[in-house]
């Protein structure tokens, strides 16, 4: 029994729908993207093919075996406990002739329709040294053979994490090295929530846009600025299989020219007097043009009105120029989040931001992520891991009070000796909540802006 109503408008269907781009994990661990279209046959490389209808309306996450283009659900497999034995590889020599079963014979078995598990069983029976192997090694052997012969795949739910992971492994340069962990930090730092208003600059194939849309759930406004004449396709969003309302009510775009306040976009006239319209076709064309013009003008007004909750940038262009252009539209206390694959870009940006008065405490972090294999008795970090997911700069937009700093600067010297006694009265009558334990604050307020970089974050 569901406690909350099930009328929640979901951002996508929980099952595979006709027209979806579906990610499939094949036995060797690779992930393939396939288009599932009703009444068609889906082919997964050399692995095999199946009728698309077999997959439509199925929930994500299941494993299927392809048998004569039909799909058979394979029960989810749990980890098998491997018994430790005294076996070692002491007597096993590489390159020895151990497998009398030839490739041709195996091929014949496959063609004749013998099941994978039977072929592997046969190979094991014929294997000269199989019994000498450790149990772990036997496991690995079976797994390797399965990867080779199995005609199965698993559907992967297009969650933001999975889609990001897929793109990261497929082509990380196209998503500007944004790894799932970095992306989720960006979304949290930018305080993305349903109903928020955000500006994004996404030159990362739409990964950031996909993330923001996913976290907005069809409510609020996302205004993106792009470098092309017409709104960019943001290809990553296609993998999310969003329902129309997630995008259509939320996403609008401008480009770097139309985002300039003092620029007047060149727009052909759409308000032509009724008597001058010659045909229905012209009329519908004019209406279309008018809709585009109105959208552009409304979007510009919306940008220039400002008061956006956050600005999120993952761009190939100079981030300082982007911030100069767009940070005026961010509301006070709003977040500014900039991702870059390169630390140099963000180091320079941070230096520039520290020289400006409207950014509070710009700081840069790099995310570290390590995955572990967790098999009973065989738990260890994976041997190969991703080296970087890029760098993230975060700052808070503030309204400066020039007088405040002036007063502070005058008093900078006599303040030092007073610091100790002041710490004591830190928790004061006026505050409702006690301060967290750490009261060892050595910085006086006036030095915050000067040496932010040398402070520890968190």
């Amino acid at each position: 029994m569901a406690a909350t109503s099930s009328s929640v408008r979901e951002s996508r269907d929980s099952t595979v729908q006709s027209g979806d781009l579906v990610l499939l994990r094949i036995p060797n661990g690779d992930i393939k993207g396939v288009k599932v279209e009703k009444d068609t046959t889906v082919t997964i490389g050399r692995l095999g093919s199946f009728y698309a209808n077999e997959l439509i309306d199925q929930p994500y996450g299941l494993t299927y075996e392809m048998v004569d283009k039909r799909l058979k659900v394979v029960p989810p497999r749990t980890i098998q406990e491997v018994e430790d034995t005294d076996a070692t590889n002491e007597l096993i020599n590489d390159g020895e002739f151990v497998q009398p079963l030839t490739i041709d014979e195996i091929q014949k078995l496959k063609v004749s329709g013998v099941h994978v598990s039977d072929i592997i069983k046969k190979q094991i029976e014929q294997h000269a040294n199989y019994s000498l192997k450790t149990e772990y090694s036997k496991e690995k052997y079976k797994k390797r053979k399965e990867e080779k012969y199995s005609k199965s795949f698993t559907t992967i739910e297009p969650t933001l994490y999975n889609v990001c992971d897929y793109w990261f492994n497929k082509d990380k340069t196209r998503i500007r090295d944004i790894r799932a962990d970095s992306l989720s930090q960006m979304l949290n730092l930018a305080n993305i929530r349903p109903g928020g208003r955000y500006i994004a600059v996404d030159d990362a194939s739409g990964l950031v846009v996909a993330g923001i849309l996913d976290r907005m759930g069809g409510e609020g406004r996302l205004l993106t600025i792009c470098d092309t004449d017409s709104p960019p396709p943001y290809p990553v969003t296609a993998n999310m299989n969003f329902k129309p309302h997630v995008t259509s009510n939320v996403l609008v775009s401008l480009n770097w020219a139309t985002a300039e306040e003092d620029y007047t976009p060149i727009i052909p006239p759409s308000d032509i007097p009724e008597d001058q319209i010659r045909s229905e076709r012209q009329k519908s064309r004019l209406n279309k043009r008018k809709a585009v013009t109105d959208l552009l003008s409304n979007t510009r007004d919306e940008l220039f009105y400002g008061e956006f909750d956050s600005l999120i940038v993952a761009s190939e262009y100079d981030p300082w120029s982007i911030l100069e252009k767009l940070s005026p539209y961010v509301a006070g206390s709003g977040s500014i989040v900039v991702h870059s694959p390169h630390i140099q870009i963000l180091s320079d940006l941070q230096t520039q931001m520290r020289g400006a008065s409207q950014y509070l405490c710009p700081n840069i972090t790099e995310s570290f992520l390590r995955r572990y294999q967790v098999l009973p008795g065989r738990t260890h970090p994976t041997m190969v891991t991703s080296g970087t997911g890029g760098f993230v700069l975060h700052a808070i937009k503030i309204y400066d009070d020039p007088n405040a700093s002036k007063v502070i600067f005058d008093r900078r010297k006599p303040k030092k000796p007073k610091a100790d006694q002041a710490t004591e009265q830190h928790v004061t009558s006026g505050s409702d909540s006690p301060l967290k334990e750490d009261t060892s604050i050595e910085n006086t307020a006036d030095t915050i802006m000067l040496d932010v970089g040398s402070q520890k974050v968190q």
Partner: protein
Amino acid sequence: MWSTAREIAAGDLVILWLTREALQPLVITPGKDFNSKFGHYRHADLVGIPYGSKVASRKGKGFIHVLRPTPELWTMALPHRTQILYLADIAFITSHLNIKPGSRVIEAGTGSGSFSHSVARTVGSAGHLWSYEFHEVRAGKAREEFARHGMNDIVTLTHRNVCREGFTVTDTVDSVFLDLPAPWEAVEHAKQALRKDRTTRICCFSPCMEQVLRTVNALNDAGFTEITMYETLLRPLDVSHVPVLTPIGEISEKLKQAERKREDKRLKQIAAGRQQSASKRKREDGTRMDDQSPEAAEDSTAVERKRIKTDEESAGVPLDVLPEPVQVMDLDGPEDFDAPVAPSGRSPVPVSTAKISVSKVMSEVRGHTSYLTFASLQPFSPPPPETESLTAAVTPADVES
């Protein structure tokens, strides 16, 4: 959750940013004062100013920034009741568990509510968070906090030991997050709470590897698949703006100048020595002068040379006996090589004023928080095992109190 108005109003919760290590929550209560080493402020003076304002102290001493609360700022400002989760883990867990608007999530235990605030923000009013805390006082404090932050519609808090008693919902949630000392004891209960019509996910947060291993076994036994474990950390970077690094050509030039100067001085001393001994000899005996070798002359003037050098240095005057006049150049910078004197005639060593930004990882960083063990439960229905319904499904309204 929190005010979305542009300006601060009476009764709003704000975050006072004193330094990046000292953030403090404050409920604006006109009539009260906020006093700290960063100055004196009247709450009433903050009413009506825009969020994000830098505010000067009434007495002109110091300033603070008054910020709009976000879950991320709350994590930095909240009163600690327990060890808390920070951004890197919160963000990664949220993402891996696919928590988004409309999601239904279970969290145990509530702790200091750092994760709860972030999840409540992300699931929004269409989603729901069931939070469980077994410590009565902490549960009470968290309940007050959630109410004060306007989260009652989104969060249902229950005081309960979930390892013993299970959860209050069945076949309902999309994901479960367990931050418990013995998460394996709650795995079966979690399975019951998870909905079965789609892939659902669980995350167990444990600092120790031994806990991970027990959890993995429990998850496996309960039929969870895709069991995997991650560790994630933030590496904060320290950026400095420094002068461009000196090329070694400049250093070698300085060394050469120093060497030339030394040689000049030596030659001058020889010349001076010769002059002295010559005049000395002239005074004593002019006839023996021809027999003396230059080397001997040099030796005999060793004492004199030392004297000259000492004189020059203590007086600190330019060597007026040098063939060319000497110019003292200030190459400023404390790390400069100790050779500030260059003979004129050569252009002074150029001092670049260009600066660059350099960054390095902070010297001390968080090294470990916890291991994040993830697993998922697939919507595959084998014949369902007979389960005695310990955990009846209840509506959130019933559970509260």
